[in-house]
C-alpha cells in the first residue's frame, strides 16, 4: 500500500509540534512548492505569492501547537495560505486584472478556428490559467479552493471570513465567468439567439 504525502509528513509534524525546529524546517522543504503553487494561483504573481508563502509558514510555525493531529497537514497549510492570500490581497485593494477581462473576450472572438477545435486538454489548461488570472481575487480564491483543491464550502467560508452562502454565490459567479471566458459566444451564435 502506498503512503500518502500526509502519512510521510506525520512524524515530522509530530516532532515539530513538540518544538523540534529542524523538523519544521523539513516540513517547509517538503511542502513549499505546493504551498507556493496555491499562493501563485490565488495571487496571480510571483512577488505576492512569495510574501504569502512566507507569512503562511510563519503562521503555521506559531500555530503548530494548536494543529489537530487528526487533520491533514497539507489541507491545514492550504487553509492558512488561503487566509494569508486573502489578507494580502485585501491590503492591496487594487484589482488590476479586472480591466483585462474584456480584452480576453475580444481576442477569443477574433481567432479563426472554432473554440471547440482549440480546446484540447493542454490548450484548455493554458487558457484556464489565463482566465483564472483575470478573475477578481475574491472570485478566484473561492473557485481555486473549491474546484482545484476540493476544500469544502464550510472551510472556505471560515478561512475567508464570509458566510457559506456568500462562498457559494462567489463560486457560482466565478464558474460562470470562467465558462464564458473559455467558451465565448461567437457573433454567429449570438445572431442565431436573437
Amino acid at each position, binding site marked *: 500500500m502506498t503512503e500518502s504525502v500526509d502519512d510521510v509528513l506525520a512524524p515530522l509534524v509530530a516532532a515539530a509540534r513538540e518544538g523540534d525546529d529542524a523538523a519544521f524546517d523539513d516540513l*517547509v522543504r517538503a511542502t513549499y512548492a505546493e504551498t507556493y*503553487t496555491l499562493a501563485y*494561483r490565488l495571487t496571480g504573481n510571483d512577488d505576492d505569492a*512569495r510574501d504569502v508563502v512566507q507569512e503562511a*509558514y510563519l503562521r503555521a510555525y*506559531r500555530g503548530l501547537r494548536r494543529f489537530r493531529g487528526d487533520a491533514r497537514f497539507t489541507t491545514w497549510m492550504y487553509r492558512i495560505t488561503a487566509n494569508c492570500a486573502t489578507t494580502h490581497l485585501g491590503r492591496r485593494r487594487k484589482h488590476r486584472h479586472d480591466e483585462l477581462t474584456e480584452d480576453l473576450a475580444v481576442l477569443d472572438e477574433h481567432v479563426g478556428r472554432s473554440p471547440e477545435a482549440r480546446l484540447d*486538454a493542454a490548450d*484548455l489548461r493554458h487558457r484556464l*490559467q489565463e482566465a483564472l488570472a483575470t478573475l477578481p481575487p475574491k472570485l478566484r480564491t473561492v473557485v481555486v479552493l473549491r474546484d482545484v483543491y476540493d476544500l469544502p464550502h464550510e472551510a472556505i467560508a471560515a478561512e475567508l471570513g464570509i458566510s457559506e452562502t456568500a462562498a457559494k454565490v462567489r463560486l457560482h459567479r466565478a464558474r460562470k465567468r470562467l*465558462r464564458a471566458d473559455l467558451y465565448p459566444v461567437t457573433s454567429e451564435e449570438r445572431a442565431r439567439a436573437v
Partner: protein
Amino acid sequence: VSDRLADVAAGRLLLDDEGRRHVEQCLRCQAEVVQYRKLFRAMRSLRTEVIDPAPGLVADVLAAIEEAGERRALHDLLAGRRVAYLGGIAAATAAAGGAIALAARSRRRFHLAG
C-alpha cells in the same frame, strides 16, 4: 435549471424530473453541461501541477522562521525568569508572613505565661 448546471456537471447535484426533461430537450443546456465538465476536468488537472518558485524562497522562509524561533525562545526565557522572579517574591512573602505569625504567637504565649 441553468443556475444548477455547474453542480450537475460536477456530479454534486441531481436534477429533479422536470429539470432532467428540460436538459434532455435543450441543446444549449446540454452544451453548457459539457463545457462545465471540461472546465472541471481542467481545474482538477491543475491540482497535480506544481509551479516551481524562483530559487531563494526556501532560504527566505527558513530565515524568517529561525528569526521567529529566536524571538519565541527569548520570550520563553524571559517568561521563565519572570515566573522564577515572581515565585521568589511569593516565597519570600510567605516566609515573612510565617515569621510574623510565629513571632506573634510566641509573644502571646510569653504574655500569658507572664
